[in-house]
């Protein structure tokens, strides 16, 4: 099984930093979960800039183009899933697809993604006017893309597979003014919901249709994270106009909470797989029940009944195998993440 996770967000929001920190943190393992790159060269490609960051105190260069790599997520040495991770230059969001290969790729990636991780700069959200923060985080463009490729039921498909997991990563949380950190980041969440109201409204509207499963097919949550840790970076220039604030690392970095949004995305997509399997079991059971009620069919279709039984057992076995993995991944993350829609 391969899940596709696309990371996107406006330029300078912290996608590359987040990726480097996440892969570093997960390379050694957290709570039994571990990420391995497909090969050693891929691993060094991500670890080298991380080393330059930790030792050289040098932020990674702004991304040019796009980078895609395949990783494997393990739980206690069991393969949970492969996933494809894509990091973009932020500008890919706001240029037309015919003007840039990255933009065209981004559209295709979102369409194909099981989960998206939206990266938005919490410091910008907190310190700039909401309407400016919308532009700088590209929240309107993000909504536009998701709406086009994932929210419209005719495009995404009505089935269980039609939804998508949305994890909103609020980066640079270390630098937030105190009032935005108070009450477990309450003020930050309020302003974020305002800045990302397109996405929030969509999920909220779906939630109101309580009778259907559809709203639950869009698990969406957010979390403030930092790749440096509180007080370890200082603002050297405040943001103004198109310019974002600049930071300087003043102490060795200690990433905080970076793994949860990732685990949330993977965990909920594993859960979607399990949901599909459960539906299949239900369906098989119904068919079996119908068949065995009907004596004639029981006589004529003895063989296909046996086949259905075998399939049900197989699916059930796969579900049993998935269960502890989902527990390990989503169990951890769903406790930490905060709902996009309160």
């Amino acid at each position, binding site marked *: 099984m391969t899940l596709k996770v696309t990371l996107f967000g406006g330029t300078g929001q912290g996608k590359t930093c987040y990726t480097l920190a996440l892969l570093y943190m997960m390379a050694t393992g957290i709570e039994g979960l571990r990420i391995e790159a497909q090969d050693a060269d891929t691993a060094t490609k991500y670890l080298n800039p991380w080393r330059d960051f930790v030792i050289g105190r040098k932020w990674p*260069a*702004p991304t*040019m183009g796009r980078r895609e790599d395949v990783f494997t997520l393990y739980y206690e040495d069991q393969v949970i899933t492969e996933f494809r991770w894509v990091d973009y230059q932020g500008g890919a969001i706001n240029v037309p697809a015919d003007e840039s290969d990255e933009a065209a790729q981004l559209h295709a990636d979102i369409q194909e993604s099981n989960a998206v991780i939206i990266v938005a700069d919490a410091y910008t959200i907190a310190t700039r006017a909401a309407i400016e923060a919308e532009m700088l985080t590209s929240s309107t463009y993000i909504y536009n893309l998701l709406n086009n490729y994932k929210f419209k039921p005719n495009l995404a498909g009505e089935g269980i597979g039609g939804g998508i997991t949305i994890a909103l990563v609020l980066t640079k949380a270390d630098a937030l003014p105190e009032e935005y950190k108070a009450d477990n980041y309450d003020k930050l969440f309020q302003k974020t919901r305002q800045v990302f109201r397109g996405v929030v409204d969509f999920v909220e509207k779906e939630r109101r249709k309580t009778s259907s499963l559809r709203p639950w097919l869009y698990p969406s949550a957010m979390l403030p994270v930092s790749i440096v840790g509180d007080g370890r970076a200082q603002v050297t220039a405040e943001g103004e106009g198109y*310019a974002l604030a600049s930071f300087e690392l003043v102490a060795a970095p200690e990433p905080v*909470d970076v793994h949860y949004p990732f685990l949330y995305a993977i965990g*909920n997509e594993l859960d979607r797989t399990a949901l599909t399997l459960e539906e299949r079991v239900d369906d098989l059971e119904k068919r079996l029940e119908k068949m065995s009620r009907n004596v004639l069919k029981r006589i004529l279709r003895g063989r296909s009944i046996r086949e259905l039984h075998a399939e049900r057992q197989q699916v059930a076995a796969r579900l049993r195998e998935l269960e502890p993995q989902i527990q390990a991944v989503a169990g951890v993350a769903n406790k930490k993440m905060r709902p996009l829609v309160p």
Partner: protein
Amino acid sequence: MQVEAFLFTRSQRRDFTAFVRPAGMSNRDVSVIASALNNVNDVERLTRAFPALYGFPLGEYVYLLRHYDSRRRHAGRAISVVEGIAVRATWARHFALAVPYLIAHQAEALDIASSVGDLELFAPTLSAAYELPEHAAEIAVPDTAYLDDFVARRLEDRLIVPFTSGGLILMTGALAERRFLSPLYFAFGTNRDVIAAFADAGVSFDVIGFVNAEGAGFRSRETGEKTGEIAVPVVEPESESAPQPAADLTAMRPRAVPLRAPIPPRDLPPAGGAADVPESERLLTMREARRQMRALQPVEPEPPRPAFDPFAALRRLLRLIVGRRE
């Protein structure tokens, strides 16, 4: 020789964009170059005076590009510039002859950025084709033995040089050598990840100047193993045009930055980040939500099963046999 210009960089308003590009250059070609050079993390090492240099064919063109730190910043990060010229592939041999001269005069020949004025105001355009006078250049290398060697082993081996003036002389000497049957392609001031990314796009190089290579020599194309050594010419540092000695991480002394203000103690949420939510607020997975929904919905009574009528089955069987439909 007809050439077209290429300028790839970013402004505050616009993320990395081909501000100027040859008419026949596709978005895909732009992306290949950008994504490959994205693997250079320490752009600050590459300066306008001593930039990284690349010569390679891609799509309809052969490119001669330089890559350096613009000294402009975005969110505190160094913005790089990739710029230079390109010729249609039909001009490849002419171009190859001109490359050593163009490299020696890179400061003017590859400077596209200064012709566009204020980037914040500049809208991306296609380059007009313009005539470039063809100059060949002789490069005086102190010892030509390595050229004889390279001519003989080019198919098996690559020439590896350090990213220094001496390395540049060795490389340019090879580029000026007329005995090669086809043009040499090169990447100077680069690293393994860049080379691998170009290779994925089908671009391979004959001469490579690694930023962290110490000496010069030959390496097998196949295994990457060292197959020969070459003495690097010693160049008297001509003020600023000579680059710093290879500053890989082992040589780099981490900058000790004094804390401007002591880190104030703060009541961190548990584990230094967001606190766990209480169990009642834990986010539900899709299936948990469904279970909850189902539990809340009134259970519809199952429709009563029809009583088993053995004769009905017999009647249906009979109908099947006589072939009548209901």
